[in-house]
Structures are given as C-alpha cells and as structure tokens.
C-alpha cells in the first residue's frame, strides 16, 4: 500500500510539473504577439510605461527557462497582480474559494443522489415507461447548455415568479439558511448535466451486473429481489460511479462552475475568471488554470489512493485510470 501511494504521488508530481510547463507555453510561447502587451491586456494599449515595467518584471528578454522560473515564482509567491484591477490575483482567488466550493459540493450532493436514484429506478424498470421517461430526461440533461438552463431559471423562477433570489452569495457562516436559499438554483443548474450522465452510467452498470454469478448465488441463497438489487447489484455498480466522481468534481469546478457563477453572480473563483476573460486580463486566467489543474491532479491522486486502500486488486494491477 505504501509503495502504491509513493508511486502514485511521484507520478502526480511529474504531472504537476508538466502542467506548469503547459501553462507557461500557452501564455508565453504559443501566441505570436508581444508577451508584455498580452499580459497587460486592455490597459497595455494606452500605457507604454506599463509594458516596459512588465517586460522588466517578467524578464521577457531573458531565456525561456528564466522566464519560466519567474512566472512560477510569481504565481506561487503571491506576487501575481492583475493589470486591470491592480489587485493581487492569489488573494482574489482565495476569496472566491468558499463560494466555489459551496456551489460545487452542494451540486455534487444533488447529482450523486439524484443520479443514483434515477439510475436505480431506470435499471429496475428497464424497458418500461419509467425507464424511457428517465432516459429521455437524462439525454436532454446531458445535451443542455449550462447557461441556457440558468437563463430559464433566472427568467421564470426569479423574475416571473419571484420564488428565488436572482443571485449573489451569502457566506455560510453569516446565515446558513440564506446561504442555501441563494444557492438552490445554481446547485440545480450545475447538477443537471451530471444527473443525466450518472443515471445512464449506473443504469448500464446495473444491467450488466444483474447477469453476474454473484447475483445468481445471492438469489440461490434465498435473498429477495429487493435485497439482491440493493445489497449486491447496486453496491457493486456504485464502484465506477465513485471513480467517475473523482474525475468529475474537478471538471465541475473548472467547467460548469465558471458559467454558473458568472450568471448567478456568485462571487467565486469562476466568476473571477469570467470577468478576467471579459477584460482579457491574463494573469488571473493563468493562475486559475494552474490552480484548477493542480487541484484536479491532487484530488485524482487522493481518490486513487483511497480506492487502492479499499480495493486491493488495484494496488496489484498498477494505477487505475
């Protein structure tokens, strides 16, 4: 177990290094324009002094490894500043973390519970009316643009019928009820895609599992259908769902959350990134990309290790992916 964890963590470090190199390439090497002008964003066009400062600070006239080193020191040393708002990027990101995690964790609870419930019902009634209705719902959910659903919620549930607040984030520590009330629509928006996907995956896993030998054994020893389904079929079919969740939680943070936050005006990391895009303000985007990728790599490694601890077969076969 310790060996597996060590190997997995070493692999993780390599990937983290590669991630930083890719981010460096994206922002400093691939584009053809003047890097200082790019980092200065919209302000740079009117302010030649700013460009000169950036050139000196970032060392754009020096060799690539030196530039890479400077960039890393800026990102991880907390010296990265946005050139449009003049604020420290790392602080801004930290300020957004509570809102982003509130959104993503709440959405994850919804998508896991609904996904499992719908998938289970679908599999139990395979071929029936419930199954078909849920399949259609799932496909619509998977195909839905996040911001479209958000817009519909906004218009019908906060404006036509004033059922929910149209946005804003209330810290959990300030008022837990208000916190949840403000987050209901964003949670649902973000969860819908995954509910569809998870219920489909669980359905097909359960249908496959029903033909396995252990199910026959369980039946043979006299368990009721219901017991077989919940204690054996469902439990085994949930394993891949856990793996998927390890991947998707990060995907939600670095994907759907950006769109959801910017529409519902939740002051999280995603909205910060969305604003930076609108102003073509590169330092925040650079940092958000890097931190999100870091978080995902770290989270995946932890899930893998937890998984290997639960299921010894994975340890012996090598890293699961």
């Amino acid at each position, binding site marked *: 177990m310790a060996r597996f964890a060590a190997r997995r963590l070493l692999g993780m470090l390599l*990937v983290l290094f*590669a*991630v930083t190199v*890719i*981010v460096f390439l*994206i*922002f400093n090497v*691939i*584009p*053809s*324009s003047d890097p200082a*002008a*790019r980092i200065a*964003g919209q302000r740079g066009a009117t302010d030649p002094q700013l460009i000169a400062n950036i050139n000196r600070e970032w060392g754009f006239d020096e060799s690539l490894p030196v530039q890479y080193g400077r960039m890393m020191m800026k990102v991880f040393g907390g010296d990265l500043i946005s050139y449009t708002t003049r604020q420290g990027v790392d602080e801004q990101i930290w300020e957004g973390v509570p809102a982003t995690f509130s959104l993503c964790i709440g959405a994850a609870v919804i998508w896991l519970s609904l996904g499992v419930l719908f998938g289970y019902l679908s599999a139990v009634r395979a071929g029936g009316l419930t199954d078909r209705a849920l399949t259609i719902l799932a*496909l*619509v959910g*998977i*195909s*839905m*643009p*996040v*911001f*479209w659903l958000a*817009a*519909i919620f*906004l*218009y019908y549930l906060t*404006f036509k019928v004033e059922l929910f607040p149209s946005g804003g984030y209330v810290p959990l520590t300030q008022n837990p009820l208000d916190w949840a009330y403000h987050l209901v629509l964003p949670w649902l928006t973000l969860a819908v*895609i*995954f509910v*569809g996907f998870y219920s489909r*995956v669980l359905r097909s896993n359960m249908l*496959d599992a029903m033909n396995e030998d252990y199910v026959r054994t369980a039946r043979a020893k006299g368990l009721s259908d219901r017991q077989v389904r919940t204690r054996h079929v469902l439990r085994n079919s949930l394993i*891949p769902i856990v*793996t*998927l969740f390890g*991947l*998707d939680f*990060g*995907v939600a943070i*670095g*994907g*759907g959350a*950006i*769109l959801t936050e*910017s529409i519902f005006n939740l002051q999280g990391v995603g909205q910060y*990134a*969305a604003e*930076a*895009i*609108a102003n*073509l303000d*590169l330092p925040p*985007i650079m940092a958000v*990309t890097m931190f*999100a*990728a870091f978080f*995902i*790599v770290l989270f995946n490694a932890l899930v893998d290790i937890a998984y290997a601890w639960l299921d010894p077969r994975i340890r012996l076969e090598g890293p699961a*992916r």
Partner: protein
Amino acid sequence: MASPPNAESRPKGGSPWGLALRRLRRNRIALGSLGLFVLIVAFALAAPLWADRVAHTGPNATHTLERITIDGERRDVVSPDGTPIGPVWLGAGGRFFLGADGRLGRDEMVRLMYGGRTSLFVSLVAALITTLLAVSLGLLAGYFRGPTDAVISRLLDVIWAFPVLLLGIALGTALAVGGLQIGPLSLSSGSIWIPILIIGFVYTPYMARPIRGEVLVLREKEFVEAAVAQGAGALRVMLGELLPNLWSTIIVFFTLNIANNMLLESALSFLGAGVQPPNSSWGTMISTGIGLIYSAPLLTIIPGTMILLTVLSLNVFGDGLRDALDPRSRVRLEAHAGSFEPEEKSA
C-alpha cells in the same frame, strides 16, 4: 485488403456494415434525430437566402434608429429605453421575424441562421481535427508501444489534467490578444480558426485514449500477424489492417464529438474566449442576450434551444449508431465533462 477471417461462415445478411445499417434503420428514434439534425443544418445553410430574399439585411447590419411598419403600425426597432423589438413574425414581411437582438437592432432571425452556420462549422471542423489527431496518435502509440507509447500517453495525460473548458479559455484568451503564428500559418486574433483549432485540440485525449486501447488489442490479432508475415511495413499495417477495424469506433466518437464541440464552442463564445464579435454564433448570441434576460428573454432562450436541439439530436443519433455498429461496445463520451466511463472494465 483486410477481409474478416471467416467470410464464408458469415450468417446471411451481408457485410457488417449492411447489418449495422439494418439495425440503424429499425431504430426510429435515432433516425428521427438524424432527421432533426439535417433540418437544423438546412436551416443554417438557408441563411443567405433568408437574409437576401426575406429579411433584406445582413447578420451584422445594425438598424438601431430605424422604424418598421407592422400591420400598418409604425414601431421602433429599438425603443428609446434600449429594449429591442420582440418577434414580429411575418408582420413586417419577414423583417425582424424574431425581433431585434439588442441596442444595435440587428435582425435576430438572420443572426440565428448565420450563427448556426458558425456554430455548426466550428463544431464539425473541430471534430475532424480531433479525429485526425486522435486516430494518428492512437495508432502510433498502440502500434509501436514502448517509448513512443509512453511519450504520447504521458502527453495526453497532462492535457487530460486540465478541465476542457478551462484549457479552452486559457488558449482562447491567450490567442485572442495576439493571434497565432506557427511557421507559414498565421491567424489574426479574431479569426474563426482559433476556436476551431482550440476545440479540436482539447478533446484529442478523450478520443485518442480509447483508440489506443483498441489498437493495443487489435495488433495482437492473427490478421495483423498474417500481414506482417507477408512483409507489410508499419504504415501498411496501421492504415491497411488496423484502421479499417477502427472505423465503427471512429464514426461513433466523431458524431458525439460534434455534439460536445457545440457545447464547448457556445460556452467559450458565451464567456468571450471563442468566436469573436461581430461574428455571430449561438454562443455569442446568448452572451448578448443574457444582459437583456428580463426584458427580452427570447434572445437567450431561442439560440439556447437551437444548441440543445442540435446537441440532443447528435447525442441520440450517436447512441443509436453505437448500438447499431457494435451492440456490445462500452466506450461512451460524456457530453460536458468529456471523461469516459472507466475503460476496458469488462474487456
């Protein structure tokens, strides 16, 4: 050519492709979805016709201060408080069928049709790029194995570590400022090819990995051994023996990939890191529309519905295709996140 080993003992019913086609024909829902997709494509292709013959305006022409006559009544295209006119259907002879798009007073219907062209074009070409890259990388890694495979697989792993949308945003904003120049290829910052290349690139690992997995299995089969024994070189084995066996996977992935691309394009354009104004795409239209969500909700809902219908039709058709081509296939592309079901679980 690579004919399957037991050609004579095949049950009556023709080639595998013929069988698949028959299975597909029985799947009414899949066929219906294909029909819907074809309709949407036709709708987008008809854009210039509608613009010239019916609406008499272009997608980027502004009509801010104009007035139109609807059933004998004169009305502002954009009212003084900035609210655009809503759908007038055929009240003005086809002009402003779906109303105007905001302060600029552009014809929403014309923009919707032209935007569809952009969105479909971006999604389709990006899917072609993804497929080309993924198949080449998958073939190389799976066939040569060893160090080639190690390099390619690790590279794909690293790209995989980034969330698709965030990687697209990073590339999109970095290139939106200065454009791209690789050798003789030079793209200005507003070029439509920038989002195309980005989208084509970011989805590559999600397709290359399962293809590599399949190649790893296929290359151990007897027909590959036979080809090698006959003196076939690496290139001939890859293109002549392995590729034909990958087509069914490729087609399914390609279809589902177009759907994913459309969602990614709209998300990128919505945030301002995709298709750049004044070009319209369904994503940029929603981006304009969301600011007017309370006064003119249709500006958001209509393009959003077009995206939903297109993606849904492709997802359902792709599902049907997979069932028809390989009823036991397990690869499945996730719509938004882009991750797969755990691969080779049972294989």
